[in-house]
């Protein structure tokens, strides 16, 4: 039993380091903001991939840069998506191959696979220049698929191409041409096996992902695609790489066309899909190409401070206390799900949810209201130059949410020059700060005009 693809989406963070400052001849590098990590970007991609009411039977979070060890990161994604407690949420963490494992598990058992990575290279390194940060989500289940699963083939081989100590943020690579030679054979073998099982001579679209850039450079010569051979447009993004690249093809594939996804990492996983008539109506917006073309520049120095590779002078303010486990657990539906409470007696909305109505005094007469998917309007805002922030100044706004409810939130990816009273905002799941090793996840507002 296998399941069809029901939805997909990619998420690219807002910031770009201009290539010239990194020593790139052209282009730029896509980088996650200081308040993003693999978990928050996974939430962003998954929220785009799922339509309201859709409930995958399992959630797999794949990342080579998990936000936590010893704590399942998929659970925060599960909470932010508001999935029922009987939905499995599990991490597939470690390498670029993890997303292929999650994808195959979802194909075979149903589920949502989300891959997200914040790839860090040493300043000046090829990894810094040619890597990227981002996320993508695919979900498989019963229903009318946008792409059918045809066949899969995996080959595995032990050799040393890339490695990184679990305690290190930056990794190493053997002489690139060694890995490229090994991968070439593995890719050909996996591709041939999958195509044979799918009874296809050559796929219409071939998608190739590999941490070895020499392989990426040769992509078109390794496997033939009748219409396209593509790789990720943002460089190597770890586990997210194959899923982001696949999202780009799903943006353009026509009904009936076959897609061969090749994820070459410590072996090669080949997965053959065929687009259905349902795909054109359910493509993501904006497309990956548009996501790639947007964004705002960030300086290399600021970026390095976001990754902890340089330490900038901070305001003379104490770091906040870490979020405490019991209050955070009690507030799960608020903190992770962004749900408030609305009084059934008078309609007043409470953010955070409260038991006693602030308007009419009714006690425990509340219903839960979800805010994450709504939009809002800035009532007033301020730029706080004194507040502790991993990237000062902090921008905060008072927001009236459509349909009722007011709260004060930080503004993510803020552009104060275009922020004003009346600016429309949506909501995004972010990491406010990290204290005592605990990531403080909560929701922020993001300017509609910043996307």
């Amino acid at each position, binding site marked *: 039993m296998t399941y069809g693809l029901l939805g997909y989406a990619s998420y690219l963070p807002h910031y770009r380091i201009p290539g010239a400052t990194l020593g790139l001849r052209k282009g730029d590098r896509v980088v996650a903001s200081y308040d993003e990590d693999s978990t928050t970007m996974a939430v962003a991609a998954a929220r785009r991939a799922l339509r309201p009411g859709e409930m995958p039977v399992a959630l797999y979070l794949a990342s080579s840069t998990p936000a936590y060890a010893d704590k399942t990161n998929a659970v925060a994604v599960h909470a932010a998506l508001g999935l029922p407690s009987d939905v499995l949420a599990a991490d597939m963490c470690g390498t670029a191959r993890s997303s292929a494992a999650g994808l195959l598990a979802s194909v075979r058992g149903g589920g949502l696979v989300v891959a997200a990575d914040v790839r860090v290279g040493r300043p000046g390194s090829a990894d810094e220049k040619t890597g990227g940060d981002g996320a993508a989500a695919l979900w498989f289940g019963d229903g009318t698929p946008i792409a059918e699963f045809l066949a899969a083939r995996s080959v595995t081989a032990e050799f040393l191409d890339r490695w990184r100590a679990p305690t290190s943020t930056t990794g190493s690579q053997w002489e690139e041409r060694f890995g490229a030679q090994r991968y070439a054979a593995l890719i050909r073998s996996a591709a041939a096996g999958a195509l044979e099982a799918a009874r296809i001579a050559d796929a219409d679209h071939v998608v190739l992902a590999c941490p070895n850039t020499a392989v990426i450079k040769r992509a078109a010569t390794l496997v033939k695609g009748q219409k396209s051979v593509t790789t990720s447009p943002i460089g190597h993004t770890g586990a997210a790489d194959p899923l982001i690249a696949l999202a780009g093809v799903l943006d353009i594939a026509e009904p009936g066309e076959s897609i061969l996804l090749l994820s070459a990492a410590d072996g090669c996983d080949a997965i053959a899909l065929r687009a259905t008539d349902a795909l054109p109506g359910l493509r993501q917006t904006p497309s990956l190409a548009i996501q790639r073309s947007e964004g705002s520049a960030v300086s290399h120095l600021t970026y390095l401070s976001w990754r902890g590779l340089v330490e900038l002078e901070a305001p003379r303010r104490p770091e906040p206390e870490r979020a405490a486990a019991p209050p955070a657990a009690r507030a799960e539906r608020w903190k992770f799900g962004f749900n408030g409470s609305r009084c059934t007696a008078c309609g007043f909305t409470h953010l955070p949810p409260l038991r006693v109505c602030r*308007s009419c005094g009714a006690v425990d007469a509340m219903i839960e209201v979800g805010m994450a998917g709504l939009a809002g309007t800035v009532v*007033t805002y301020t730029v706080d130059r004194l507040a502790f922030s991993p990237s000062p100044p902090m921008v905060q706004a008072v927001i*009236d949410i459509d349909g009722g409810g007011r709260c004060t939130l930080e503004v993510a990816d803020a552009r104060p020059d275009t922020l004003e009273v009346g600016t429309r905002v949506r909501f995004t799941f972010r990491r406010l700060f990290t204290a005592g090793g605990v990531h403080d996840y909560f929701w922020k507002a993001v300017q509609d005009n910043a996307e």
Partner: protein
Amino acid sequence: MPSNGIAGKVAVVAMGCSKFGERWDASTDDLILEAYQECLSTLPGVTRAEVDAYWLGTLSSGLGGLTLSRAIGSDDKPVTRVENFCATGSEAFRNASYAVAAGAYDIVMAVGVEKLKDSGYSGLLRQDPPGDGTAPEISMTAPAAFSLLDPAYCERYGVSPNEMRAAMTHVAWKNHDNGTRNPKAQFRSPVSPETIDSAPRVAGRLGVFDCSGVSDGAACALIVPAERAYEFTDRPMFVEGLSLVAGSTRGSMDSSFDYTTFPEVVKAAKDAYAQAGIDRPAQQLSLAEVHDCFTPTEIVLMEDLGFSETGHAWKDVLGGEFDAGGRLPVNPDGGLKSFGHPVGASGLRMLYEAWLQFRGEAGERQLADPHTALTHNLGGRPGSCVSFVSVVSNQLRHRD
């Protein structure tokens, strides 16, 4: 139900106030002792043993009653430590006054102290209980929260940003100017409007001079039943109204709240005025000591306390109506702007100015024939605050 109040029931017969500032030389104990000794030194007939009970206000400079009893070596008397945000010092005074009015004690001392400068940080530090990590207060600073008043006020009343900037600057200029005449103030140098305008930004349009400073200080008051006041001094200060409002925090969640008023202040003022029989505060008060934590706060307070028509405070401020020589001097001692804001001490420091003015001991700041004063504190942030208002006078009076 309106407050009954305790008008005419208690009086202040002695006060003390430390020098405020960066008191690297002084501990919390030293600050308390400085205010305490000044207070008792004015009453040679009263010794430590005759004080029946103490109320101590401090936000974060010590826990429990021992913070006070240790400092003054009090002998096994009751000490109640209170905290109520920036109204902490006033809260100590309010509860001490109630204890005397209730007849529980005859001689009670209210003490407020705060030792802020030892932390090494800018601004106030919060000591929040363990939380879920979502409260805006954990990261959003007080200047940021109060900076929201400025654009909201401009928007609602059609005030241009430049006009509002000028009014904010005038508040800072006025309070610093008043502070030049106060030997106990932290900042005693005049500050020019140009310096205020060009100061580095802290949050929103608030610059460094739009914010009250951070300082150390202590102040205290000796409170007795009104009918015994003249046994202690020929110039006592009578408590006519005391009110405190802790808001429901509705404003932070209510789309109808527009950041141009503090409903908690309006309610606290109304209550205190009713107790004191005041119906025309702008005419009946001789001076007001208000919580000028940030310059736009003082502008909004002029309306909430009934000193200006709604939407006109910025104009009245610019017209000099609250200057030392204006129709109602506001913060004649220099305010939080000149004193900084050692939280536990500020409310009692405000009462100390009323005390000096009534006794004719305000030196260069002395107003002509002051008889009734208001003191006010505001804690928390717009939408979610506590507010305190007192009315004190130099004689028991009966208003129509």
